[in-house]
């Protein structure tokens, strides 16, 4: 039993890295644009299907394929922002953008169903079904590679945000949009690029998700978005570090509960969310009531 739990914890930490990556994209978009991209879940699935199409039809390696899928998802993100998010104005802007993202998700789901059908598909590669034994734990290669990729991308994002001029303008916009505009930051450009980056990470997240989840179909987006939302709320909306910590914590928790009851493991997510928010409405790492109305 104890062995099983240790194994579950190791799996959870490795799997949590991937969720951390997807959640960072979501929380970044929230921080800059003050909207929640409900479509993030289905966009992860789109990323997974892009990898699938590349590997099945063109026989491109999954990790190599990211060189194509990440830019593709970036473009999709920028287009969604320009076409559906930026035109929204007025008092109900935030709620309207939420509904717009929801509508985009429905369209994306329909398109995926149409192209790929409702059947479950899996990503295939030599390193998906083999594993290495470390200290008595079986670690599938894909988990290791996926975790390494997630860590690398998160570090890259951190570098981008904290070491570059663009990152400074993003952080300034997150703090105070009006002030950022006043000191000459092109807030619209920052918003579009941030949305693109936030969506681009779903390509990598989707590939690893598709390889580790044991099968996905267009309907998997709901499952993903519900987890991601729980993670970013728990971590405190707009807090990147919080999203990382909450992702690893929640996926580990789920993975441990999964030993006893796979059906109810996902419920742990929401139960944890409800319990935490009852005592700490700003989430685990949120500092203030996120942006006064």
């Amino acid at each position, binding site marked *: 039993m104890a062995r099983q739990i240790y194994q579950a914890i190791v799996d959870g930490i490795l799997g949590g890295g991937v969720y951390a990556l997807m959640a960072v994209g979501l929380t970044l978009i929230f921080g800059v644009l003050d909207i*929640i991209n409900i479509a993030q879940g289905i966009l992860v699935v789109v990323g997974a299907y892009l990898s699938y199409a590349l590997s099945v039809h063109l026989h491109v390696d999954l990790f190599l394929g990211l060189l194509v899928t990440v830019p593709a998802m970036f473009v999709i993100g920028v287009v969604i922002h320009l076409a559906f998010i930026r035109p*929204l*104005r007025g008092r109900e802007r935030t709620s309207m953008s939420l509904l717009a993202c929801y509508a985009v998700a429905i369209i994306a*789901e*329909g398109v995926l169903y*149409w192209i790929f059908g409702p059947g479950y598909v899996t990503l295939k590669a030599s390193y998906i079904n083999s594993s290495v034994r470390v200290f008595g734990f079986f670690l599938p290669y894909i988990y290791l590679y996926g975790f390494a990729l997630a860590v690398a991308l998160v570090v890259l994002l951190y570098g981008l945000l904290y070491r570059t001029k663009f990152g400074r303008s993003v952080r300034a916009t997150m703090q105070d949009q009006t002030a950022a505009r006043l000191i000459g930051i092109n807030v619209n450009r920052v918003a579009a690029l941030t949305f693109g980056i936030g969506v681009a990470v779903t390509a990598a997240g989707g590939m690893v998700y598709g390889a580790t989840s044991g099968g996905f179909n267009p309907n998997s987006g709901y499952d993903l978005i519900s987890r991601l939302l*729980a993670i970013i*709320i728990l971590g405190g909306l707009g807090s990147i570090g919080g999203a990382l910590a909450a992702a690893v914590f929640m996926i580990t928790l789920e993975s441990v509960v999964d030993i006893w009851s796979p059906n109810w493991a996902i*419920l742990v997510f929401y139960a944890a*969310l409800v319990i935490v928010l009852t005592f700490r409405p700003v989430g685990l790492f949120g500092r203030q009531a996120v942006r006064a109305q």
Partner: protein
Amino acid sequence: MSELKGAAPPGLRSEAAGPAAPRERPRVSGKLLRAAGIAMVAAALAVYPLVITNGLATTIAVDGVIFISAAAAWNIFSGYSGYISLGHAVFFGSGAYTVAIGARDWHLTGDAVFALLPLAAVVGAVIAVPCGLVALRVRRHTFVVITIALFFIFQLMAFNLSFTAGSIGIIAPILNWAPATYNDPFYYIALAIAAGTTALAWLIRGSRFGLQLRAIRDDEDRARGLGVRAMRVKLSAFVISAFITALVGGLWFYFIGEALPQFAFDPIFDLSVALMAFLGGLGTVAGPVLGALIIEPAQQYLTTTITNDYLSEILLGALFLVVILLLPRGVIPTGSELISKWTARRENRR
């Protein structure tokens, strides 16, 4: 859009009128026009199944009228208070399952099942209390996400609990009504509920309670400072809204004839009711009615006439996007603004 006078403090009044959009007060002619419009819509709805007997058309009509209540109920909470709930399917599904489980376990058949509708409503209201107590502690985005989370919890429970029969679902008892007029009783029950809900929405909007809700929408902290008991007011609206949603959920189950987790707890329901209210005009009385009458028939038409399910889903999403992008403020506010502009111009000319 009349701002109804009530016993609210002056500071609150000016806020409730909206800072950016000064709303013109409708003139007498506007009032007459509105009364005539309401009478016409009501009369058209009342005689609809007598004039049009096509089975498909009446089926769509029943759906449309059910959604009038659902959208109006959503609007009573979310439209007035500004707390956008994307989890109202929780109450819709709970209502459906209450009737389904009740009919199955108590071996009710035929018309007797309709006696379960009040029970469905009460169950919805009871479920709303703990949900509201948790969700209403947080605001804005966090609130939206909590309602989505609640929605997924309930869908998951419907899939996994033993008494909901999981993904097999529960079949409704068979009604031995004449096929030609089968839809009519459903239609009139739904219409009665819709009329009641709309009247309630109108009463609430003009009442002290409604003003408190709208004060919360505009500035919750200030409303609280002025003595509005925010939690109590929000929770009351949430429970009222859940009560009606569960009531029509129960009716919907009997009409559809089957309760399945993915359809009773349907994410598209969450989105639809919100969009109906937005399309018509958030926080208005007539808005959700109009929105439901436009969106639900369109949606039903798409899903029944286009045999490709996926294409109809894509078109549905596109329809939603068009609504959001072209009519962000809703038909009713945009329309009344146009009318008052037009009458003002005409008066200037004189």
